[in-house]
């Protein structure tokens, strides 16, 4: 038995060293213990500053908005796409649909610039078709405040990811249940709530957690496509850390910790919801 547990040791060591030791350092610095610049007194001032300063608060709220919008839309559209994939059995189309999963975010962001910026292909097409008369009439979809460009990049990457994951579950499940329920006269809504939701919700909740946390903390996409006046929280941290002035570093680490706590709270809430949804309790 003990010998078997040794198998998992390298995994646990790497993860815990990185997570625990790194976050311990992060907590230390954010609490004001930073001997490198002569700070040695523990204080909560960094947290207080980060949580009350309107600039930081806005970037926190903005990141949450982007993450929630992108995640919920991806889950909804990805779920629909999964059923489409289930209906159409064309292996070429299946391969194409799963293509974006392996494209890096930087390249997808670049593709967004070429496609939906004011001088992008769609704008050019509109011009040729006479829908717009000059370049400036095309709406600002990149570096814009609602973050259309950012959201589209995440949707492009995440919808296929959700679809492929949900499809794998759908193929494992016995679709016969649905046939039986329907032949017994169950409505589509009834089928959804008593069969599909209980079978799928655990996967959907896991996907929600992973996608939310990733989008919330992502750096490259908002760096390339974000509105200059509205940095996301990851961008704010990056800016604070790339300044030569070391005095702002404790604030960056305080933001690191705040960010991690937000992700953990969202995870906890999502898992709790999962328990109370149909099909949640069985597994415990």
């Amino acid at each position: 038995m003990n010998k078997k547990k040794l198998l998992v040791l390298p995994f646990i060591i790497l993860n815990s060293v990185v997570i625990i030791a790194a976050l311990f350092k992060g907590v230390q610095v954010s609490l004001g213990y930073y001997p490198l610049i002569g700070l040695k007194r523990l204080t909560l001032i960094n947290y207080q500053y980060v949580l009350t300063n309107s600039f930081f608060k806005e970037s926190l709220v903005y990141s949450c908005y982007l993450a929630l919008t992108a995640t919920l839309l991806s889950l909804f559209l990805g779920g629909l796409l999964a059923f489409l994939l289930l209906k159409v059995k064309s292996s070429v189309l299946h391969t194409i649909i799963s293509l974006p999963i392996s494209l890096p975010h930087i390249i997808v962001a670049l593709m967004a610039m070429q496609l939906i910026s004011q001088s992008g292909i769609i704008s050019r097409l509109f011009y040729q078709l006479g829908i717009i008369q000059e370049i400036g009439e095309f709406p600002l979809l990149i570096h814009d405040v609602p973050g259309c460009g950012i959201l589209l990049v995440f949707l492009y990457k995440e919808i296929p990811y959700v679809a492929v994951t949900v499809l794998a579950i759908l193929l494992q499940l016995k679709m016969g249940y649905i046939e039986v329920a329907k032949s017994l006269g169950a409505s589509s809504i009834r089928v959804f709530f008593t069969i599909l939701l209980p079978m799928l919700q655990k996967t959907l909740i896991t996907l929600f957690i992973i996608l939310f946390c990733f989008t919330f903390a992502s750096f490259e996409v908002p760096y390339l496509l974000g509105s200059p006046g509205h940095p996301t929280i990851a961008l704010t941290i990056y800016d604070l850390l790339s300044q030569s002035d070391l005095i702002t570093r404790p604030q960056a680490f305080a933001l690191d910790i705040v960010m991690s706590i937000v992700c953990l709270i969202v995870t906890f809430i999502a898992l709790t919801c999962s328990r109370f949804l149909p099909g949640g309790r069985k597994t415990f």
Partner: protein
Amino acid sequence: MKLSINKWYASLFSFGIIIVLPIIVLALWSVSGKWIFPALIPQKVDFNTIKHMINDPIFFPSILNSFVIASSTTVTSLAIALPAARYFAFQKDLSSRVVEGVIYLPLILPAIAIVTSSQILFLKFHLTGTFLGIVLIHTYVCLPYAMQILLESYRQLGEGYYLTAQSLGAKPWYIFHHITWPLLKNGVGTAATLVFIVSFSQYLPTFFIGGGQIITLPMLLLPYANNGRLVLASSYSIVFLICTLIGVFILKLIMRRK
């Protein structure tokens, strides 16, 4: 019925178009000599930017660095994930939600928080600016993906074959070589491919732990894209995609031989 199937096919087909179109535009940009608004296709096609890119002294080293880091990360991740996934798949003490939590924790905690905080730790152990440091942090980032796939493979494999062979007197290494590996090969191949791709496209961990001394393809790509140098950035993207394909192809060859 026939009509409705066609309708489904058409909708999926349009999804496919939305996915492929931007990739075609990207490829066109990489060879465009002149492509000014409102032209729909490049006004001039040439390979000047691509030549310029290849002549950049950092070009080949960055490709080499990317390959060295991604392949080392793939090997390290598999070496760590294979035994761990085996343990998690067959243990009976922890519920599946707890195992999921342990595996997915690196995906839940914000990467930027972990990377920036662990930078202090890595500095202490003189791991910043080294390949070892970058491979370690990449392995941390990639492990959840490898674990997820391998765990599923082990669960499908079951413990039955292993126990049968063991009770017939087979040695653990023999069992691994003749039973586990042949049945697990597909899962390992998928995990290796995914880890390679994820590691290849990392920017933040390489940037912070590499300290700007070890240049990989994404580290060249991001500034070019940010400065609006679309042609150069597209050329680098195409190189990036070709390199990933080569990497995946080599991995497939290795997996087939064994």
